[in-house]
């Protein structure tokens, strides 16, 4: 049976589930700011706080997709501004490669997003989640690598 990615889910029926890995010092603070300034963004995002985006091994991305996420966001400090100086430079190399590898394995492009969001960029966080959600609504629910029971 072919696994297809196409087809727009009906807007009311399908709310894309997003897992967002946010680094403590920048993007998590940014997400927090979005909240405290009452910016609205889809509620179907689950944030996982990590010390640094460099903490993310690509297997977390695949695990999230396996367990029911439709999209995964890796959010870190802007390159050059990492709290640990260089963590996000490693993130950049590693996750770019992971994006490519997922594509090679036939996973849908557009499931893994990488964004640099500083502690003051609450708007960017909210915009990112909104954009991701809209894009994932078009892409539809993720079925590739998905555990049927999750």
């Amino acid at each position, binding site marked *: 049976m*072919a*696994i*297809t*990615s196409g087809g727009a889910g009906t807007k009311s029926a399908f709310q894309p589930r997003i897992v967002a890995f946010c680094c403590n010092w920048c993007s998590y603070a940014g997400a927090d700011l979005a909240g405290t300034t009452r910016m609205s963004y889809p509620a179907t995002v689950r944030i996982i706080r990590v010390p640094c985006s460099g903490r993310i*091994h*690509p*297997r977390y991305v*695949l*695990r999230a997709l*396996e367990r029911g996420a439709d999209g995964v966001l890796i959010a870190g400090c802007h*390159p*050059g501004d990492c709290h640990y100086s*260089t963590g996000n*430079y*490693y993130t*950049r*190399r*590693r*996750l*770019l*490669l*992971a*994006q*490519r*590898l*997922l*594509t*090679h*394995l*036939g*996973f*849908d*492009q*557009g*499931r*893994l*997003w*990488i*964004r*640099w969001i500083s502690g003051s960029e609450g708007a960017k966080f909210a915009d990112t989640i909104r954009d991701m959600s809209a*894009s994932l609504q078009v892409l539809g629910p993720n079925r*590739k*690598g*998905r*555990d049927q029971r999750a």
Partner: protein
Amino acid sequence: MPDAGQPVGYPAEVLRDLQQLVRDCARSLLEQGEVGMVIGHRAAAPYGRGVPAFVTEPGEAGQLMVGPQCQVGIGKYLLDQTRATRGRVAVIGRGCDILAARRLIADNRVAPDQVLLLWVPCAGRAVPEAMAKGGAVARHCLQCDVRLPEPGQDGIEIIGAHLAGALASASLVGEGCLEATAPRIAPAGPGADNAGDAGYERWSGWFEHCLRCYACRATCPACNCDICVLESRSPQWVERSTALPQQFMFHFIRAMDVAGRCVNCGECERACPAGIPLMDLQQLVAADITELFGVERPHVPGEHEPLGIFDARDPDPERPARTSGGGALS
């Protein structure tokens, strides 16, 4: 039954001379106490195929062989043999074996002063299925760029440098031999066979046959951890079940952990009992590393591995991608 000793692509006298050089070298190293063990190949039934040889006595050096029947990659044995041997351990091997050894050294799994690397020129490995019919060179070997030893490398001696020329001009697929093995799907670029739903179907089809036997991991020189994430129970990243999501997880994790460290020896694919084209995946990743990070020969262990360093000017997911292919930007 064709003569299993008939070399493929190796002029017979070149093979004979090279083999003698290897045996003399091993004998001398052991006699002089330079090393405690020489790892090479020796002939075994059937077809006189080359299996790993662990020579510890000078008198045993005569069993060493070279040639296309030498199937098994031997570089990885440095990992446990350096721990088990008093004195240094020498590897007399081809480009793929030497790179495997260099991988272990670069990963700090063996110390440079524990090993002695001796590089012999190579004209390719034969395909086991074809060996009974006169042999054919593995397709993977046709793409190899380390067949001929490169001089001037620290800690690596070259055996048979004067024979390299004769091998370089030897045709890799001998007359009357079969075509290099059954067609594999060529490493596809982005947007080709591997991408999208068709790509997912293709890999699903392969991974459905994966037995999770760990042969790929066991033979891979880059897979040299004492404790492997793929077997971790707490947390358990990959379950033991062969359900398709677990299969993808297994191979994705392995590909990512080996990315930038793969020496392109092809042992994973050779070992796989299910015939999964694992090198396709590794070569796609290697091509990405070249394209994204400008690493010319990612399979040659350098001072730093590509994912262990960075450049402030690396491609950025928030800037438009330099090339039109690939998913640099979601």
